[in-house]
Each structure stands twice: as C-alpha cells, then as structure tokens.
C-alpha cells in the first residue's frame, strides 16, 4: 500500500466519521464544526486527485465564507433544537430502511460497473500543468453564456433578498451617519432666554 493510498483511507475515514457526527451530535455549533471538518477533508481528497482548484475553492468558499456565516446564524438565532429531534428514535428504523434501499439501488446502477476506477483513470499531466489556468481559459470563452446566466441568477437572488427583507419601520432607533455628520448647532442646541429670577 503506497503512501498516497494510505492518505486516501485516512481522509476517507475522517470524512465519513465527521459526516455522521454532523447529524448525530446534540450541539448545533459542534455539528457545524464537524461540517467544516468534512468539507476540509473532502478538499484534501480532491488534492489527492490533483484537482487543486476545486479543493482551494471548497476551503475558501464553503469553509471560509458559508460556514462562518452559518455559525453566526446558529449562534444569533439560538434555536432550541430539542423539539426538532423528537421522534428521532421512532422514525429511525423506517429512515434507515429507506436510506439503505436507496443506497443499494443506486450502488447497483452507478457502482464500479459504470463509474469505477477502471473507466475513469486519472489522467497524467506534466509538472507545469495548471488546473486553474485550464478552467479560466474555458470559463470566460466557451462557457461564457452559462456563466453570464449564472450572474443574472445571482442578481435576481440579490433583488429577491433585498426586496423581501428591507422595509422601513416606524420608530426604530437606527443611526444615520450622514445625518449625524451634517448636524448643525441649531439642531441640537436651543437657546432659551430666561428672565433672571428675583430672590424674595
């Protein structure tokens, strides 16, 4: 067993373990952290098959951005997940049976017979071969049409998110820095002219 194969098995074991932990730990923050571990290990697996661009993107986007945001949401919302877990044991046998059947059926079709290592051997590349450059050279040329549609989808997502969440509510104590900077003395100070009081 070569060193590479040994690494693969280590990463694969860690990946499966952390993926199972994501759905079994009680604390949602721990679950999110296990998900980070799962992403990180799959990035390592991708590195093993020389897909370094995908590996880096996975770490940067999912670990760096998405999961951090996710953790923030979990911590800020502080959802009580105990009610969500009720009936876990009760539905477990049904769930496991269905999942097992699906896995077996899918294994029969998409197993090694069609998508095994025999059909899809690793393509050897020269030392100076760069995945990133290859991706970049087709992304903005041959795939420019889907790429632009994807950008339109992101724009729609922004419009949707803003139009669904932004509303002006009366009476909120929010600050407007521009207004604060432009404030003049007359807005804040009111000079009151008072007659001196006489002592009796």
């Amino acid at each position, binding site marked *: 067993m070569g060193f590479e194969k040994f690494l693969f098995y280590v990463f694969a074991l860690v990946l499966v373990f952390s993926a199972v932990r994501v759905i079994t730990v009680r604390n949602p923050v721990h679950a999110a952290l296990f998900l980070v571990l799962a992403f990180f290990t799959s990035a390592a697996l991708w590195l093993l098959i020389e897909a370094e661009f995908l590996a880096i993107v996975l770490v940067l986007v999912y670990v760096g951005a998405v999961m951090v945001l996710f953790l923030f949401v979990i911590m800020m919302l502080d959802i009580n997940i105990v009610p969500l877990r009720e009936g876990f044991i009760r539905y477990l046998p049904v769930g496991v049976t269905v999942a097992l059947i699906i896995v077996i059926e899918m294994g029969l079709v998409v197993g090694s017979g069609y998508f095994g290592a025999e059909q899809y051997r690793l393509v050897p590349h020269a030392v100076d071969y760069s995945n990133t450059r290859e991706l970049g050279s087709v992304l903005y*040329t041959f795939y420019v049409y889907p790429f632009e549609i994807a950008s339109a989808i992101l724009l729609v997502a922004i419009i*949707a998110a803003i*139009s669904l969440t932004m509303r002006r509510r009366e009476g909120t104590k929010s600050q407007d820095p521009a207004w604060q900077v432009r404030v003049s003395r007359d807005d804040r100070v009111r000079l009151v002219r008072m007659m001196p009081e006489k002592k009796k």
Partner: protein
Amino acid sequence: MNFVAPDFMPVVPELFVLTMACLLLVIDVFLEQRQRYITYGVAQLTLLGAALLTLVTYAHAPVTTMFGHYIKDAMGDLLKIFIYLSSAAVFLYSRDYLRRRDLFKGEYYVLGLFGVLGMMIMVSAHSLLSVYLGLELLSLSLYALVAMDRDSPVASEAAMKYFVLGSLASGMLLYGISMIYGATGSVDLQVVSDAVARQGADNLVLVFGLVFLVVGLSFKLGAVPFHMWLPDVYQGAPTSVTLYIGSAPKLAAFALMMRVLVDGLGTLQGDWQQMLIILSVLSIALGNLVAIVQTNIKRMLAYSTISHVGFLLLGILAGSPEGYAAAMFYAIVYVLMAVGAFGMVIMLGRTGFEVENIDDFKGLNDRSPWLAFLMLVIMMSMAGVPFMAGFYAKWMVLQAVVNIGLVWLALFGVVFSVIGAFYYLRVVKCLYFDKPEQSEPIHISLDTEIAISANGLLLVALGLYPTALMTWCATALLN
C-alpha cells in the same frame, strides 16, 4: 485552443431583455411611488421590443451559437412570441390589482422580466447547462414573487413550500443531468443525442438519469404525483403572481420537455413514453376529480391546470411530429385560457375585496353581461366544448394518441374531460342562473377591458379557425 468569438445575433432578444431588466432596476430607484407607472410602461416596452426583435430575426433554419449552449429555431421563436404576449397580458391585468393591494412596486416588474429571460433561455437551451440555469433563473424569480406580499401569512407559507419543493426538484434534475453527463461525456444536447444513439437504450445509467430528469421536469410542470405544491401556491400567492406562474412558464416547460426528451434523449423514447403515460393518466384523473370538490376558484383552476398538464403530456408521449405539434398547440391555447381565467379573477376584485370563491361569480350576468360572456367562453374552452379553442386542442392531442395505437388512453382522456366539464359548468351556472350576492359596480380600466375581450375572442377565433395556428406550430417543429 482556438477561440473564435461566437455569433451574437441570434441571442439579441435575450441580451435586450437582460439589459432592459437591469436598466429598469436602476430607473425604478429614482421614481417616486406616484411615478411607478413609468416602470410598468418600460416593462411593457421591453416585451414589445423583444417581440419585434424576435419577429425580425425569426429563424427559418435552426442556428446553434454560443458554443452549442444556445439554439435559435422556429419552435423557440414561436414559443417566445407567445411568452411575450402572455407576459404582457399578465403585467396589464395585474396592474390595477397591485395598486389596490399596495404591491405596485418596481420589483414585481424587474423580477417578472428576469422570469421572462429565464423562460427565453429555457426555450432556446441547447445544452443541459443552459436548461438548468434558465430553469433556476425562472424559479428564483417566481419564489421571490410569491413571497412579495410579506404581510400575508398564506403567501409566505406558499412561498416556503414552493421554494423547498422547487429546490428538491432542481436537485433531482441536476442529479439526472450529472448521470447523463457521466454516461455521454457532454452537456451539449446534440453530442448527448449522438452518444445516446450510439450506446442504445440498454445503458442502465442513461435510463437512471432519465428517470431523475423526468421527475424533475414533472415537478416543475406540476404533473401528478409531483403536484403537491401547485394548489397551495396558486391559492396562497397574490393573484397577480398566480396569473404569472400559471401562464407563460407552462410554455417554457413544454419547450424544456421537447429539448431534453425529444432532441436530447429521443433514442430513449420507449423508456420515457411509459413514464409519461403514467404521469398523464394520474394527472388527468386526479386533476379532474379533485377539482370537482373545490370551492376556492384559484384552487379549482390549479387542479384544472394539473389535468391540462396531463393532456399536454399525451401529445409529447405520442412521439410523432403531429403529437408534438398538437402538444405545442395545446400549450399555447392553455396559456391563453389560463391568462383569461386568472385575469377575470383579478378584475372582479376591488379595494378591500378579492374574488376567492366560485360563489363570488354568482349573478355576474346581471352585473356585467359582457364579462360574464367572456368568462363563459373561457370556461367552455377549458372544458373542451366543441367550437372552442380548447376542444380543438384536446381533439388533436387525442388523435395523436390514437394514431400510435393507444386507444384506451384516448378513451380515458375523453371520459375524464367529460367528468371535468362538470366543474367548469358549475362556474357557468353561477354566472347565469344564480342571483347576485353583491351589487357593487365593477370598475375595469379601458385598456384592460379591451385586452380581456381580445383574449376571450381569440379563444373563439382559434376554435373556429384553428388551422392557422396549428399549421404554424407544425411548420415550426419541422425545421
């Protein structure tokens, strides 16, 4: 690797709509609420401009560009023209409704235009990538539109259901696409088609991917058993959005079926034909039976949509040129009927009152004979009464099914459309034979009234002279 810039000319309508939608987004920021009609006007002008561009560049022979991701052919152009037409009608019918409900915002039109763009991309898709991206662009706009009325809990619930089930459907579709890609090594539908023809129908992976593709597409179309979202969304969404969801997207979904199943996986016709038979039998049966017990008009029309989807699938599963033409004719006629029916539901509302139940149509004849007549035409056409457009559409589809030897399926369709006629006729009974429960006058602006009249009369005209549109569909599919 040699890169030659692609031919942008065929994509001009899409580029135009995209540019105008972005422009509209910017213009709308500078408008005050009372100037919002400018947004509406620009949106309508965009549709008009896109229609002109499509007509000027109408394809007589298919052109593929954008490195195989885009195809311009007569089927696509014809469907696009009807997409513009029905979207323009949707914008017009819903204008007063949105104003009444305090929803008259720029986002409705911007998202509406992006939805139209998504449909155009779906209609002209020539690779599985553009199929998926176009579908997502449309779906995302629709989710946001359904949720737009934030103060309505029903709308939020509908949006949530639609979003979750829609995402599930997209997942199914993507999984199917990845299987097809794995088996053929390409997303280009032409290459996929060649590879499938080479490998034959006994490749298990292809059939496996096909199942997921069909499931994903039926989710989006709303065919039984993947219809659960449809009644809730139709009922919960603001009626202007129901009008939008119920009309033009069906044309795009039809195009998607044609591109993926017929153009891409035509060799597997034996496999998908059986799947579509099951889907259409279930849709026709369940749609017609459940619609009978509905009292809410939007829910009833949702179930009627499900049964119409079943009939549409009959034409596609026939797998013959006449079947495809019949299905295309059916899709176009259905969209005209749906726009008219939901348009009537919208128009009879007024400030503080929305038409929700079938009973709200009671005695419409006494209040406005002309509107009652138009509603009669639309309902008769949906039921498939002879000399209406809907009758001819059903006739052609059933004929296509008989011609491939599935007589039992045609008989089944006939029996259930007779059963289905019951609930359409119940609306007609409400219109003409019941006493009105309200006496408030109906206010409809002139342009809307002209449009709905044209809409209803078009259904009569298409029923009397269906050959023109039918020939147009058939020739569009030929080249």
